[in-house]
């Protein structure tokens, strides 16, 4: 019985951690340099 309870608690804990990681997590690295420039003039010839 104790083993079953532990297994359930472990599964629930893993589920909560997985949910938090899925919804939060880390997405990536922002650009460290440069920026956006509108296409105009010579870009569109």
């Amino acid at each position: 019985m104790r083993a079953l309870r532990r297994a359930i608690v472990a599964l629930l804990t893993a589920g909560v951690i997985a949910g938090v990681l899925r919804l939060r997590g880390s997405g990536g690295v922002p650009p460290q340099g440069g920026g956006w420039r509108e296409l105009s003039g010579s870009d569109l010839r």
Partner: protein
Amino acid sequence: MRIVVIGVGAVGSRAARQLHGSLSPSSDDLAVVDVHGGRMEAVAASLGPPAHAAPWSPATFDGADVAVLCHGSSGDAHRVAAEAALERGAHVVSTSDALDDVVGLLALDAEARERGLSVVVGAGFSPGLSCLLARHAAAEFSSVAEVHVAKAGTGGPACARQHHAALAGEAVDWRDGAWVRRRAGSGRELCWFPDPVGGLDCYRAALPDALLLRPAFAELCAAGSTGPDRITARMSASRRDRVTVRLPMLRRPHAEGEIGAVRVEVRGRRGAATDALVLGAIDKPAVAAGAVAAVAALWAASGRLARPGAAGLAELVAEPVSFLRELADRGVRAAVFEGDPGVASSSL
């Protein structure tokens, strides 16, 4: 010239307005059709001649040069309307970004070619403007290895519903010479869009971009080449979107979304080196989609598309620069990321 716009919601009303500015009140005709009679009458009245409201029936396409399909996608509504338009000798421009619609419309390729007509599939913000940006970026490379599209934001209520449905569907990507289906909502990547949208988490979704881009790039590549190894599409989603994706929409969709963005990253070889080019655009998605659809309709009517048949804009527009210039004249401007693309871009 006679143009019929089906559906005058957020996108259709913008497309009609863009077309209205390019048509002659005396010699042209712009019929607007919608299931909501009041909205249809209001749009026609606000535009004035040559726009007028017209009841929906297949006969509405009689004598039309182009049918612009902007109605919400339910089942095969776009395909049915496109078939009716083709039978009556009209080119078709569809703004739908629903995977089923795009597959159905692409299946009309043989019929459209036989009739010498064009079916422009996915002529919106993404796909649409994204396809043009991909084609434009590809011209900078001697060979293209990867194309990655990301989009953020929604247009009107129909677009918001489609966004919700796409996150619960199945993504279709091109990878290593084969189509790969993956669960929508997976594959998070932080994508950096032009300011002020900035960085947003994007996920796989049931998006048709790869289906439209793959044939275009296969055509562009040299004989014997298989084309890009990877073509992917992702879209931004909030945490609430992802938690509630399997449920009905909890709130009624907004009348129109806020500013959105598209971002296209193309990787390939320039000379002896591998390089990447990132193009993007920001706008209200419905406004940009309306402009893209209107220009596509005018190009179809004037015979400026590359060939008859059903395909996306990357395939049907041989001169993306001219198309982008026309969009810029209408206020829809693209941007390029200048800096270190290896840092700016994600590893999609």
